[in-house]
């Protein structure tokens, strides 16, 4: 009877967006009379925080504060088409659509400000704090609020914009599989440290240490939410979850959370993470999708760590204590 420790690693990549493309999203941006901005979408927030990061992307493009941007989603009567939230596509596809729309809105905004200030719109810049000023002469400025009022009531101009992002669909060649699955990929490498109880087969994951390459972390703490939540789900897949414990036999399928097991707060490893950014040329400010990848590298890392600890290979998921124990017993002859 002993507790044996081991460590294992795994490295992976993950494509951004729907496989083979063909998944468009659209966005509409408009300024209110008083210079707040509304982004109208039909996109869905699953909890990953899409509504927040989209506001940030719009704000960065417009040159205003994120607090000044409201995301209006989702209603098919008002929101333009969005393919949906899946395939780690949200930030990339919807973000790019918003950038396009915000750029159009910004150009009108600067045109109006230019007329008000009697300068050329090319001489203007936003200060990120609600003002539009002449480059090099910041004292010559007009607030975004006043610009919006002027646009609405004096100039009869719409500070608004439309955007769409579509990765054209690729079709695989049937014989060779030549295809374009995606235009950018995120990367990850996880080291798992485990302790295996040789008497019960139970595996405790002591630590998950990972490096993630995400293109650009647009909201670092929200990226961290995906990393930790994803790592937990990966651990859960590796050691706990199945709807068919005797697959391919369908008996004893769980119907509640007493039977469908997932790790609880008492089963957490230590999480240590680092971020690397290699911007995607076609990502919004270089961002790639990360929501799915974060659950993937922990699974084989844990499997490899178990081998390192007790010399047992379990090549099927989930790696239950029963399977580990049988492996240990087989090794001992």
């Amino acid at each position, binding site marked *: 009877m002993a507790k044996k420790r081991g460590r294992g690693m795994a490295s992976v990549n993950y494509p951004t967006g729907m496989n083979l493309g063909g998944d468009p999203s659209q966005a509409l941006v408009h300024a209110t009379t008083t210079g707040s901005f509304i982004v109208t979408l039909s996109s869905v927030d*699953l*909890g*990953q*925080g899409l509504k927040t990061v989209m506001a940030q992307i719009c704000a960065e493009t417009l040159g205003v504060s994120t607090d000044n941007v409201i995301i209006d989603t989702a209603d098919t009567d008002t929101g333009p088409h969005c393919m949906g939230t899946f395939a780690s596509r949200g930030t990339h596809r919807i973000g790019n659509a918003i950038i396009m729309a915000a750029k159009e809105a910004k150009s009108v905004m600067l045109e109006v400000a230019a007329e008000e200030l009697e300068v050329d719109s090319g001489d203007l810049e936003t200060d990120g704090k609600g003002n539009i000023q002449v480059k090099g002469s910041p004292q010559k400025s007009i607030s975004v609020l006043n610009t919006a009022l002027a646009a609405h009531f004096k100039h009869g101009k719409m500070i608004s914009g439309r955007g769409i992002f579509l990765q054209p669909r690729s079709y695989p060649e049937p014989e060779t599989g030549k295809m374009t699955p995606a235009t950018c990929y995120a990367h990850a490498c996880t080291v798992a440290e485990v302790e295996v109880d040789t008497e019960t087969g139970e595996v405790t994951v002591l630590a998950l240490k990972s490096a993630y390459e995400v293109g650009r972390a647009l909201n670092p*703490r*929200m990226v*961290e*939410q995906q990393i*930790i*939540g*994803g*790592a*937990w*789900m990966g651990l859960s897949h590796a050691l706990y979850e199945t709807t068919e414990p005797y697959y391919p036999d369908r008996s004893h399928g769980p119907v*509640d*959370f*007493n039977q469908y097991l*997932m790790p*609880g*707060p*008492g089963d*957490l490893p230590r*999480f240590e993470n680092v971020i690397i950014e290699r911007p995607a040329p076609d990502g919004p400010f270089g961002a790639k999708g990360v929501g799915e990848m974060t659950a993937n590298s922990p699974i084989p890392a844990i499997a490899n760590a178990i081998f390192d600890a007790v010399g047992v290979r379990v090549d099927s998921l989930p790696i239950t204590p029963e399977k580990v124990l049988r492996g240990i017993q087989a090794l001992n002859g």
Partner: protein
Amino acid sequence: MTKVAVQFTLNGQEQSEFIEGGSTLLAALRGKLGLYSTKAGCHQGTCGACTVIIDGEPRLSCLTLAERCTGKEVTTLEGLTSNGALHPLQQAFMEGFAAQCGFCTPGMILAAKTLLDRNPSPSRDDVIDAISGNICRCTGYEPIISAVLTAAEQLRGKKKNA
């Protein structure tokens, strides 16, 4: 189905209702009383999303008969803010990025509150024990544990300064 009269205190207010006999507290809160913060995750008592506080204890409202609440004090998440000020748990969850989809959050916060109400200096293990009946599928629990410990610290600080 006969109706039954139930009189209880809900979030500090006296509540008198006629509810369907045999209906759950969860159904009464969401249906009759229009309070939607208490969530229905499983109706089986295994996920904790329906957690409310009854007489200081965390209880699964999907397994609690509404009529058994007569004379009791029931608290839902709506009852946590006093005069618009957030409870330190709510503040800590926000600042600690301890919610993603938010569906487990009401039950989670209430379960944590019952811990802090009886134990102002919980250890990490105490927190884990208190929230072990609440499933979260998004966060991986770590930020939730941190938020509860942060809130405990805040509350101890407030008490000291009071």
